[in-house]
């Protein structure tokens, strides 16, 4: 996937520099530890999709499209619609991404985003039944990475809930009545932290991510509930660190949520 040698050398000097800055309480791009990069959400970027959001989180750019089509329900949930999440780490977005079927990074990303949406019951799947046991609406959340500059989890999680909140069920296209807004009940937001040395920073950029020893993503909703967590990388966290990270994610998630909902309101007016 990449040249581990040259990476190693660059990482070493980066690591030193980033740690020196951390001692002074700051970061390579001047942020403080809990500061998220500038976030810009462009709703409805792809008009052919039923919902979409172009998310720019610092230099990271992802496009989430939502397609909604009729399909068969799962046998064990005949009275619920279906949601499914897919992520494409297309090689356009990074020299480290390779063409081909989703690798373990893409699968983990899609599943973490999916869990945040699913476990918070963000979509009211019971409103997506066309004919019980026969036909329901299937919501496809498709994540397309455009420019990978760190912290895909948050950019994609934000894009997913924004695109869903923006989506219209295209009932009329299938002669199934009037179009209606996709019913969204909750607004889960993932916040990711990277552990660098003894410091833990929110929304790591690519440099930080590349030298981090451990990563923790916490997805929380507007009621302050925790819906999903995912620890990654080969380092560890102490229990205390995890507790602090959860608390910080509740605060930061709340700020980001305003951004998502604010933009949506603009879009609706």
């Amino acid at each position, binding site marked *: 996937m990449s040249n581990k040698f040259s990476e190693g050398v660059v990482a070493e000097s980066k690591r030193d520099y980033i740690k020196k800055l951390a001692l002074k309480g700051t970061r390579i791009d001047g942020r403080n530890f809990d500061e998220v990069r500038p976030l810009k959400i462009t709703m409805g970027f*792809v*008009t052919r*999709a039923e919902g979409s959001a172009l998310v720019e989180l610092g230099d990271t750019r992802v496009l989430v*499209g939502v397609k909604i089509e009729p399909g068969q329900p799962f046998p064990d949930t005949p009275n619920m619609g279906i949601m499914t999440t897919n992520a*494409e780490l*297309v*090689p*356009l977005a990074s020299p480290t991404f390779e063409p081909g079927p*989703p690798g373990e990074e893409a699968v983990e990303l899609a599943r973490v985003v999916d869990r945040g949406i699913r476990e918070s019951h963000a979509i009211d799947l019971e409103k997506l039944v066309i004919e019980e046991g026969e036909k329901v609406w299937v919501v*496809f959340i498709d994540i397309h990475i455009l420019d990978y500059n760190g912290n895909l989890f948050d950019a994609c999680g934000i894009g997913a809930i924004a695109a869903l909140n923006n989506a219209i069920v295209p009932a009329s296209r299938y002669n199934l009545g009037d179009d209606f807004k996709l019913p969204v009940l909750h607004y889960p937001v993932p916040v990711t932290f990277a552990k660098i040395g003894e410091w833990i920073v929110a929304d790591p950029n690519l440099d930080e991510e590349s030298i981090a020893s451990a990563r923790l993503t916490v997805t929380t909703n507007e009621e302050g509930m925790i819906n999903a967590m995912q620890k990654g990388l080969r380092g560890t966290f102490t229990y205390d660190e995890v507790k602090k990270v959860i608390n910080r994610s509740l605060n930061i998630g709340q700020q980001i949520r305003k951004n998502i909902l604010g933009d949506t309101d603009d879009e609706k007016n």
Partner: protein
Amino acid sequence: MGMKTDMRLIDDNGLRIDGRLPNQLRPIKMQVGVLKRADGSAYIEWGGNKIITAVYGPHEAYPKHMQDPNRAVVRARYNMASFSVDERKRPGPDRRSVELSKVISEALTSVIFGDKFPRTSIEVYIEVLQADAGTRVAGITAASLALADAGIPMRDIIVGCAAGKVDGVVVLDLNKEEDNYGEADVPMAILPRTGEIALLQMDGNMTYEELTAAMDMITEAAKKIHQMQVDTLKSKYRGDEDVE
């Protein structure tokens, strides 16, 4: 091509369903240097098409048996986002995108001074974010901007454009309805300096006269599109806004 419809695609005034004249292009908007990670990149909006392209390289070709000892290998990959079309497309390459990737690779190879970089590869990625007919020619138009943005030496900046036949009339730059219900489509890519043809495909049903009329139209339009490419590249170095 050739699906049946009762829709009239050319009205009594000779205008098309989107109000264009037969030889009129859709609105086009270009931008270069839009991505941070890529060595070169460009974005194009062309009618309802939204396409982003990136270039990586030249760098040592991998795996080694893909290396050409005499020149750079250009590998274009045309890909449609699953949400780019009305009916969701399954992610991953289908036969159409495999073919398009091949002819686009060949067309781009024709302008690159590849012998300057033996044993290397140059990757060109064309991601169709929203599709509205003519994605391959819009993609190749943007890809050549991305190549220029990456500093790849080229003997010309390729322009792609299509023409076709709709309700018996030869028209420039088909939109989605014209593509679905029209009688022929001729996608083409030209080296504007010499008029050489680097990509040419055609499907449908045309007489020799219709076909050459379509190719004439493309040749004419290519000049305008090329000027936009040049302006876009210039404006980047002057720090201007997007070219529309």
